[in-house]
């Protein structure tokens, strides 16, 4: 039997002793799921997200990504996982301000060791898919928030990852633009079978997902269809 894409068991995270941010979190996420993680600010949802994205490490418990125990991996092996398996979409877009849009999108391929020609070709293809083909040579600050987030999605997709982690992706956008971004995620999930984990505190954004995990005070309060 194939192991689930994500398997978390007894996960906990402490920044200070006796002050758990996460405690005893256990769940599985299968390939192709579209999961929303909801919670108030300070609930621990972002910390959970960072651990799932291999950006942070848990204090206790286990996190298996594609059956691999992430606790046993060193910094470079985790970097490799992030590069090959995971695409990030952040609330604040997190594009490099000095680089062109095309260079931003191609950057993950640089760390995958791809040639300049291949980086450019794939970046152009991804930029076209998010509908911004004519903006390739611009800088991020010359684009609107919605456009920047689409560039960030293009960057997340350029390495053809199995998992997209989106942390409040619509938080800095107006409602209509947020809806457009969510539609892109839905298409990616339904048409391309990419697993999507979305962290949000807005119920109507979480409603796009097919599974909703509520986090309250570092624990899972509910896990169901929305």
């Amino acid at each position, binding site marked *: 039997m194939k192991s689930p894409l994500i398997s978390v068991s007894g996960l906990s995270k402490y920044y200070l002793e006796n002050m758990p941010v996460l405690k005893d979190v256990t769940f599985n996420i299968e390939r192709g799921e579209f999961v929303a993680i909801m919670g108030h600010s300070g609930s621990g949802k972002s910390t959970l997200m*960072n651990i799932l*994205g291999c*950006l*942070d490490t848990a204090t206790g418990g286990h996190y298996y990504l594609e059956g691999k125990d992430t606790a046993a991996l060193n*910094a*470079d092996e985790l*970097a*490799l996982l*992030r*590069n*090959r398996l995971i695409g*990030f979409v952040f609330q604040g877009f*997190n*594009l*490099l301000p*000095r*680089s062109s849009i095309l260079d931003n999108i191609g*950057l*993950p391929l*640089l*760390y*995958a*060791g791809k*040639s*300049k020609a291949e980086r450019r070709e794939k970046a152009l293809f991804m930029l076209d898919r998010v509908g911004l083909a004519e903006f390739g040579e611009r800088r991020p600050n010359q684009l609107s928030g919605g456009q920047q987030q689409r560039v960030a999605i293009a*960057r997340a997709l350029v*390495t053809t990852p199995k998992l997209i982690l989106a942390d409040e992706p619509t938080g800095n956008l107006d409602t209509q633009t947020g809806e457009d971004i969510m539609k892109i995620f839905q298409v990616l999930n339904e048409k391309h079978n990419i697993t999507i984990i979305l962290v949000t505190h807005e119920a109507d954004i979480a409603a796009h997902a097919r599974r909703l995990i509520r986090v309250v005070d570092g624990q899972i309060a509910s896990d169901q269809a929305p």
Partner: protein
Amino acid sequence: MIIGALLGEGWAAMRANRLRTSLTMLGMVFGVGAVIMMLAIGQGAQLMVNESIASMGSNLFIVLSGSTTAGGLRQGSGTVPTLTLDDAQAISELPEIASVAPTFSNTAQLIYAASNWSTLVSGTTPAFLDVREWTVISGEAFGDSDVRSATRVLLMGQTVVRNLFGDENPVGKMVRVKNSPFLVIGILAPKGQSLDGRDQDDTVFIPITTAQRQLFGTQFPGMVRFIMVKAKSAEVMDRAEQGINELLRTRHRIHEGQEDDFTVRNLTAVAQAAAGTTKAMATMLGAIASVSLLIGGIGIMNIMLVSVTERTREIGIRMAIGARQRDILLQFLFEAVMISLAGSLIGVVLGIASAYFFSRFNGALVVVTLSSVLLAFGVAVAVGVFFGFYPARKAANLKPIEALRFQ
């Protein structure tokens, strides 16, 4: 990460903060410039000293006659005529000795047509050409027969030629020395300055017997002022000195405990001391200049630390999308080395230019060698790597989530 991309990232970072990059580079510019200029001055001085040493001749002794005491006043070397042509002959027969040139000299006025010039007239033997490693470039030297018959022939140094004859060829012309006519039979090659700054070309040579008997006259027949002695090799210098001392003590009948009436001076040792001093000076100049390289390096480290802090978030983003620690390390190391390399390049140009101007306005000899340029360049790159490494490692060791959260 691929080299081309590293260069691109470095270039973009350098351009993003043009003023800051230029100021950081300036440290390296002055450091490398100073090292190159100081090395050029030092090597120039060394070359000058070495040329003077070579012009003096190698493995040389000078034997001076002793001092006299008149009414309790000691008069200094050469005041008692104790050395003779026979002493010179005896020294030349020692096994360690290559050649010997006894010299009897004085200043005299030379006259040719309407020109006249006062110079040092040295009576010597044909061996002086060998001892001083000097050559005749026009005409010929006098021979032993000239010494035996005390002929009035004369070898002329370049400075005297210029002052008496101008552009005219003096060979075959007659000049008057203290009103005696002499035939100019040869012109000596130019030698330049001696170690103490004397013009070695401002002199003429005549057979020693002519000087003794006809020109200057002496109450002691066969007396010489000093004897130039050339040893066969540098290895036998000590034995030669000892041999000369023993020989002259025996010949002058000086008993145990009695003071010598002559002095043997090792000119090569003096020259080597001068060369050593110049070399020490050159090394010191280089060392002082390299302190400025060090300070330039600290400037790079300073700016790279600021840069890493400023770009913490960028580092976090890069790590999130898959940059490994060494990708980040190399990125910042490249940036530091690029700054130091660019600064060094400008520094090399500036250093060579200022060395050139220094020699133009100061008249000093400066020598810019490829090796000094490569050395300055190599040290600059090493400084870039050394001082860039700590900030780069600091960047690479950031935790992805902490870097990403940094505001």
